[in-house]
C-alpha cells in the first residue's frame, strides 16, 4: 500500500463514522485551542518585555553604584568620581559612561509651582537608544541648550493630560542652594542676639572653676552651632534659569533607567550645581565630615551616586561587570535581568503548557476509545484485508494514520480556534487598558514555532493514543475474523 492509499482509506473510514470522529476531533480541538490561547499569552507577555528591552537598548545598558555601606573604612575610598569614570570609559566594550547627578528643583509654570528632581545629562548620552522612546517632541541639541527633556512623571506632577501640550512651554527652573557663606554669616548674627542676657548671667566668681568654664564654652558653642545650622537651613539663595521643554520621554516612573522628571543639558545644569550644595541639609553634615563641602564643586572632586554605562552589543557584558565589581563597586545589568526573566518564562511557559497538555491527554483518551470501538466494528473488514494480502504493518499504519488524522485535523481547527480566542481576549484587554489609561499593547503572540509545536504535540499524542489500538488491530486473527456469521 502506498501512503496515498493509507490516507484515502483512513479518511474514508473517518468519514463513515462522522459523528464519532467529529466528537473525538472536538476533544482535540478544545485541548489545542486552550493550549494555543494560554501559550500565546505567555509568549506575548515575554515578547513584550523582550521588545521593550531591545527597543531601548537596555541589554547594552549597565548601572554602576558605589558600595552599599560607605561608613565602613575599607569601602570609604571607593567612590564614583571623575577618575573612576575615566577608567571605566577606557574599558574595552564600554561605549559611553554618563554619571547621574540629581538635584532638587522648583518648577514654575504660568499656573503652578512644584518641587521635583532633576538630573543633568550630556547630549551623547541622550543619543543612545535608552532615550529614544519619546512621547512627544525631540531631545535637545547641545549640552548648553536652554531646553529640558521631561518624562511623563512631570506630566503627572503638573497634572497635564497630553505630552504634546507641554512641548515648547517655558518653565522657570530654580534651585535653592545653601552655601557655607550663608551659614557662617549667620554665626556672629546669632551670637550677638541676647548677648547681654547671656553676659549678665555669667557667674564671674565661678570662672576659676574649671567645670563651670567648660559648661560656659559648651553653651556658647551651642549657640554658634545653632546659628550655623539656621544659616544652612533658612538663609538659602535661589538660582534659576528659564528653560523650554523640547521633548517628553515615555515612562510614568522614569522608565527602566528610573530617570528624574526633568533632564537638563549638562552644561546648563552645571550652573545649578556650581551654585552650592543643593541636597538635603542633613546630608550636608556628612559632606562636611569628609571634607568635600569645603572643596569647590569642580569636576575632579565631585562624586556621583550612580553611573550609566552604554556597552558595545558585540562585547560580552560579563567581563566588564567582573572588572568593575573587582574594584568594589556594585553593578546592575539589564542583560542579566533579561536573562533572569527569560529563565522565569521557561518555567512559566512550561507551567502553561502542562495545563494545555492535561486537556490533550483527555483528548487522547477519547482517541483511544474511538479507535478501540472501531476495531470491534471493523474486525471482519480487517480479516478481509488480511485475506487479500494486507500485512500487520498495513493494518497498523492504517489505524495510526486514522488517529493521526484526528490529531492533525483537531490541531488545525484548534489552532484557528485558539487564535480567535486570543483575538477576542486581546480586544477586551485593549479596551480595559485604554479605559485605565495604560497605553494599549498586544498581550498575545502566535509565532510560527508555537503553531508547529501545537501541531507536533497533537500529532505525537494522537499517534501515541493510536498505537495500542493499531497494534491490536494488526494482531487480529483473520481466520477468526472471517468465520461465517
Amino acid at each position, binding site marked *: *500500500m*502506498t501512503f*496515498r*492509499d493509507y490516507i484515502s*482509506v483512513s479518511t474514508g473510514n473517518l468519514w*463513515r463514522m462522522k459523528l464519532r470522529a467529529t466528537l473525538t476531533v472536538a476533544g482535540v480541538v478544545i485541548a489545542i485551542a486552550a493550549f494555543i490561547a494560554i501559550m500565546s499569552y505567555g509568549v506575548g507577555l515575554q515578547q513584550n518585555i523582550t521588545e521593550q528591552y531591545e527597543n531601548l537598548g537596555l541589554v547594552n545598558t549597565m548601572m554602576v553604584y558605589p558600595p552599599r555601606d560607605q561608613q565602613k573604612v575599607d569601602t570609604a575610598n571607593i567612590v564614583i568620581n571623575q577618575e573612576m569614570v575615566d577608567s571605566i570609559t577606557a574599558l574595552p566594550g564600554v561605549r559611553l559612561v554618563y554619571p547621574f547627578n540629581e538635584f532638587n528643583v522648583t518648577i514654575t509654570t504660568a499656573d503652578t509651582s512644584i518641587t521635583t528632581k532633576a538630573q543633568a545629562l550630556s547630549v551623547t548620552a541622550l543619543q543612545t537608544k535608552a532615550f529614544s522612546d519619546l512621547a512627544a517632541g525631540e531631545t535637545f541639541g547641545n549640552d548648553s541648550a536652554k531646553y529640558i527633556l521631561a518624562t511623563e512623571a512631570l506630566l503627572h506632577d503638573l497634572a497635564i493630560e497630553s505630552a504634546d501640550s507641554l512641548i515648547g512651554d517655558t518653565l522657570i527652573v530654580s534651585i535653592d542652594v545653601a552655601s557655607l557663606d550663608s551659614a557662617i554669616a549667620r554665626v556672629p548674627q546669632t551670637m550677638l542676639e541676647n548677648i547681654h542676657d547671656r553676659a549678665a548671667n555669667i557667674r564671674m566668681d565661678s570662672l576659676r572653676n574649671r567645670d563651670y568654664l567648660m559648661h560656659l564654652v559648651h553653651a556658647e558653642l551651642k549657640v554658634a552651632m545653632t546659628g550655623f545650622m539656621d544659616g544652612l537651613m533658612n538663609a538659602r539663595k535661589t538660582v534659576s534659569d528659564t528653560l523650554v521643554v523640547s521633548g517628553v520621554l515615555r515612562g510614568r516612573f522614569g522608565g527602566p533607567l528610573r530617570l528624574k522628571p526633568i533632564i537638563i543639558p549638562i552644561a546648563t545644569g552645571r550652573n545649578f550645581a556650581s551654585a552650592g550644595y543643593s541636597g538635603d541639609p542633613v546630608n550636608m553634615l556628612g559632606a562636611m565630615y569628609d571634607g568635600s563641602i569645603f572643596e569647590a564643586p569642580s569636576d575632579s572632586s565631585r562624586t556621583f551616586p550612580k553611573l550609566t554605562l552604554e556597552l558595545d552589543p558585540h562585547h560580552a557584558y560579563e567581563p566588564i561587570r567582573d572588572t568593575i565589581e573587582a574594584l568594589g563597586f556594585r553593578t546592575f545589568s539589564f542583560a542579566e535581568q533579561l536573562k533572569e526573566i527569560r529563565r522565569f518564562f521557561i518555567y512559566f511557559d512550561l507551567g502553561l503548557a502542562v495545563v494545555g497538555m492535561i486537556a490533550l491527554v483527555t483528548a487522547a483518551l477519547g482517541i483511544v476509545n474511538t479507535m478501540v470501538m472501531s476495531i470491534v466494528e471493523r474486525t*471482519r*473488514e480487517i*480479516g*478481509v*484485508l*488480511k*485475506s*487479500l*494480502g*494486507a*500485512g*500487520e*504493518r*498495513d493494518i497498523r499504519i492504517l489505524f495510526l494514520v486514522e488517529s493521526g488524522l484526528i490529531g492533525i485535523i483537531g490541531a488545525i481547527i484548534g489552532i484557528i480556534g485558539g487564535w480567535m480566542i486570543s483575538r477576542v481576549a486581546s480586544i477586551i484587554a485593549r479596551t480595559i487598558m485604554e479605559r485605565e489609561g495604560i497605553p494599549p499593547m498586544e498581550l498575545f503572540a502566535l509565532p510560527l514555532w508555537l503553531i508547529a509545536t501545537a501541531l507536533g504535540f497533537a500529532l505525537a499524542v494522537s499517534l501515541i493514543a493510536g498505537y495500542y489500538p493499531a497494534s491490536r488491530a494488526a494482531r487480529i486473527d*483473520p*481466520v477468526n475474523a*472471517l468465520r*461465517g*456469521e
Partner: protein
Amino acid sequence: MSDGRLQAIGLCRYYHRGPQTVKAVDEVDLTIAPGEFLGIVGASGSGKSTLLNLLAGLDTPTAGEIRYENTPLRALSRQELASYRAHKVGMIFQSFNLIQHHTALKNVEMALYFNDTPHRERRCLAEKTLTRLGLGDRMHHRPADLSGGEQQRVAIARALVKEPEILFADEPTGNLDHDNTGQIAELLTDLHRRGLTVVMVTHDLELARQCTSRIVNMHYGRLQSENEPPQPRKASS
C-alpha cells in the same frame, strides 16, 4: 520443477479448548498440482475450512509443513506470508466477505492495494474483471443491493483481479440457490479450463463430482481419498 505446486506434509492444526484438544486438521499429506481442480468434501466440522486457510497462508499450522514451489511457508516472515496471499492466492468464501460500505468496484480494487499494482491501473483492471464476470452494470452497487449470486461473482472478481496462481473457494455456493450455484460452478470450471489451479471446499459431493478433476474426503481432520469408503463414525476412540 514443480512450478506453482502446493504441498502439505504431515499438516496439523489443533485447537485447545480447556483440557480438550480439537484436531481440526490432523496429519494431512496433500499435493496440489498446477492446473488441477481439487475438491475437498466432508461433513461439517471435518476441518475443510481449516485446511484451506492453512494452505492459503491465512493460518499457521500446529505441526507439519506447507510448501509452495518447495519453499516452506514456515520459513517466510509475516510480511512475506502476506505477500504470498497478495500475489499467489485468491480466496472466496461462503458468506462472500465483501466490505459492505464499498461499491463492487471498490471491493475489487482493494485486492490490488497489496500487490504493488500502480494506482492508476487499479480501477481499469477492476472494471475489466467485473465486466468479464458479467457485472459491468453492477459496478457501482453496494453488496447489499446485489443478489447472492452477484455478490459471489464480485468476490470471485476480487480474487481474480490480481491474477493469482491458486483460487481457494470455501463453500462458494453454500449460500446460493440452485440456479446461482450452477452459474458459479460453471464459472469455476471455466476458470480451471483456462489454466487456473482451483481448490474448492464443499459438502456437496454432487457439485464436486460435476466440476472437479480430483476429490479428497475429509473426516475428523484426516484426509481420505474419495475411493475409500467413508469410515463409519467411531463409537469409541
